């Protein structure tokens, strides 16, 4: 099946506080060496997609840096490959930015028109999951669907009002979607992945976007549910949206300390998660170090105590320092004898000797990129 991938990357509407001051949410580091977008991008590549467009507009520098030519995902190709689709001005359009998902795709219709694929898979770069999309493609064709939405049935534990709640009939055809409804209406939530026939997508965009309907889900799909064949495909694996809140970001990172999550996300031989390589040396754990229940990336040097934490590349932990329940991002340097608990330390932070920092109650501290404390 010929499928082109589109990845929506970040808006100003994320809740990640200081973490997205200098980067878009899809370029937020997760699990030590990865960026959020690696998962959706790798899933697409692992499902046989070789032509992927990534929409960027909010703070794209670090995302662009990360993606490069797409080499790490085998997307530096002569035919297809990786395309960065940023907002632009032209004689036809003087809009400086994308006003919504549908608008973003509509402004880049040339990309779809030129691609020879018949289907479009639209994903979001903020989602953490490892999935083979191919069964979904088959399911879509078997149902003769116009659109198939990826959904998940959850038994609570989430704030349903933050998600789109999906109601289906007995054939899994979607009859109603309650987008960010304060009431709990259904256990089935929409995971932000659309699978659409390309010609159909282009048609609905031409019909709606020029009339000011800029959001694919809210303005186009939901009002027309009865007129389109929209099906739901349930995914039952691990799925998280790190953009929802700092807590969600923190908890998702901590999930990697669970064996079953690690196994599912990373140890599937056919579906590896690819990321930009940095060529750091293996982590070095020195004589006085004590490490337990932690995830340690290449380039780290540990002389202190690390417990229940996730460390990105090239982190230095001085002797006598204690790191507990923390997420430490790339290149941060903790001098000797500092004690940090329940904190997200962004990139290239320097913590001076003897500094003590603890989250108050259940609050999670976030230390801004490049800060010196």
């Amino acid at each position: 099946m010929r499928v082109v991938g589109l990845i929506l990357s970040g808006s100003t509407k994320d809740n990640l506080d200081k973490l997205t001051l200098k980067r878009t949410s899809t370029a937020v580091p997760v699990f030590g060496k990865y960026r959020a977008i690696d998962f959706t991008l790798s899933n697409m590549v692992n499902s046989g997609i070789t032509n992927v467009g990534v929409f960027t507009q909010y703070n794209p520098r670090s995302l662009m840096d990360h993606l490069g030519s797409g080499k790490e995902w085998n997307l530096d190709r002569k035919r297809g490959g990786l395309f960065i689709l940023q907002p632009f001005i032209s004689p036809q359009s003087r809009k400086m930015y994308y006003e919504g998902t549908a608008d973003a795709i509509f402004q880049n219709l040339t990309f779809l028109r030129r691609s020879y694929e018949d289907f479009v898979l639209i994903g979001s770069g903020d989602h953490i999951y490892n999935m083979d999309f191919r069964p979904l493609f088959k399911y879509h064709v078997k149902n003769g669907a116009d659109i198939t939405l990826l959904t998940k049935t959850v038994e609570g534990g989430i704030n349903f009002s933050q998600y789109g709640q999906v109601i289906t009939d007995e054939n899994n055809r979607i009859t109603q979607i309650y987008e960010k409804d304060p009431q709990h209406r259904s256990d089935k939530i929409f995971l932000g992945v659309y699978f659409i026939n390309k010609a159909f997508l282009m048609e609905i965009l031409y019909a709606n976007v020029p009339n000011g309907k800029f959001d694919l889900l809210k303005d186009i799909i939901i009002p027309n549910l009865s007129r389109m064949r929209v099906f739901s495909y349930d995914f039952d694996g691990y799925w998280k949206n790190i953009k929802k809140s700092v807590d969600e970001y923190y908890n998702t990172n901590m999930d990697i300390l669970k064996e079953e999550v690690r196994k599912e996300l990373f140890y599937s031989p056919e579906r590896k998660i690819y990321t930009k390589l940095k060529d750091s040396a293996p982590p070095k754990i020195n004589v006085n170090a004590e490490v337990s229940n932690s995830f340690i990336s290449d380039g780290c040097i540990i002389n202190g105590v690390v417990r229940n934490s996730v460390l990105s590349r090239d982190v230095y932990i001085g002797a006598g320092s204690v790191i507990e329940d923390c997420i430490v991002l790339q290149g941060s340097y903790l001098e000797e004898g500092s004690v940090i608990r329940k904190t997200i330390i962004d990139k290239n932070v320097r913590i001076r000797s003897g500094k003590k920092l603890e989250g108050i109650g259940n609050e999670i501290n976030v230390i801004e990129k490049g800060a010196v404390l």
Partner: protein
Amino acid sequence: MRVLAIILAGGQGTRLGVITNNLAKPAVPFGGKYRMIDFTLSNCVNSNINTVGVVTQYMPHRLVEHLGIGKPWDLDIKGGGLHILPPYLSRSGTSWYQGTADAVYQNIEFIERYKPDFVLLLSGDHVYKMDYNDIIDYHIEKDADGTIACMEVPVSEAHRFGIMVTDPFNRIIEFQEKPKEPRGTLASLGIYVFKWNFLKDALIRDAQDNTSEHDFGKNIIPKALNENSQLYAFNFEGYWRDVGTIESYLDCNLEIISPLPPLDLHDENWKIYTQSEELPPAFIAKGASVVKSFVSEGSEIYGTVENSVIFQGVTVSEGTYVKDSIIMNNVFIGKNSYIEKTIVAENTIIGESVEIGKGKFAESKIDKKIYNSDITVIGFNSKLKNKMTIGKNCVIDNEVDLNDYDVQEINSGEGIIK
């Protein structure tokens, strides 16, 4: 000024025993994620030498796979880059490379294509960091025909090296290859810079000499000295190791993980590049203990690791104790095992409650020349069954499934060779 580097990577490395049975020595894993040749290759690109020929001959498969098109070293470029130079057949009757000099001689045409001013001749199995610009600048300054990097070694070690005797201006006046009675302590590091015209001439004349062994140390250098050529010694003062034996292989790995290593792999300014595996960061479980060790990506540590190098994708299960050892890629170690002073090669599976490296040293019954320390070596793709005990200085061959053997105990100095 054009410089071309030739890396000799055809060596057999016989004294590494089963590790190099199916593997060229430059492809031997090192330091948690690297292979030996990464050091020389990274030195080249970090020194801005971007035309590199790698001469292969012995068991080249893993080496060639590792090198690929040179992408990790940024050598996948136009007009230069990485070239693999295997032995080849032609009408003029070429054959296997007869020696180091013959290997370069047979590739004269390749080198000529790039019209280099200087040729840098390197070895693919040394561990060191060196900016080759220093030796090239020195070579130019002295207007030498050839310059050989060298290092002071203890007199007791001198018999293992090529020893140079120099005049006060560092000009080489005598060269002794592995001398029984060394006349100096300045050892050759196997790093040479030659004027290409000089080298080409020497190689062509050497090829015509039927009595020659076609070796740089034995033939080319002594002959050049006889003919009064300008050969100079360049003193290298950094860390350099020829990892030739099982003992030096283990020692060198463990030196690199010490708190203040003589060769710092974490140095941002002189990175060592390698072909990376796509693996998540290392996981160290609750109750695990890791001290003074490297733990590479994709590893999962539930037991205790002390003074060891753990490569990628290794599992050390609960209750297991690993000490002073090297555990290569994708090794699985079951519960409650004990491993001391052991090299475990890639993809080997060690069962539960296995004990390796306990007991007293005993002389090897397999091969005294190769296995002569208290280090036990377990080969590639082998399987060790539960509750086995293996002593010191033992060896298990590659691809051995011990379930097929009716042994539960291997005493020190013994082993299983297929």
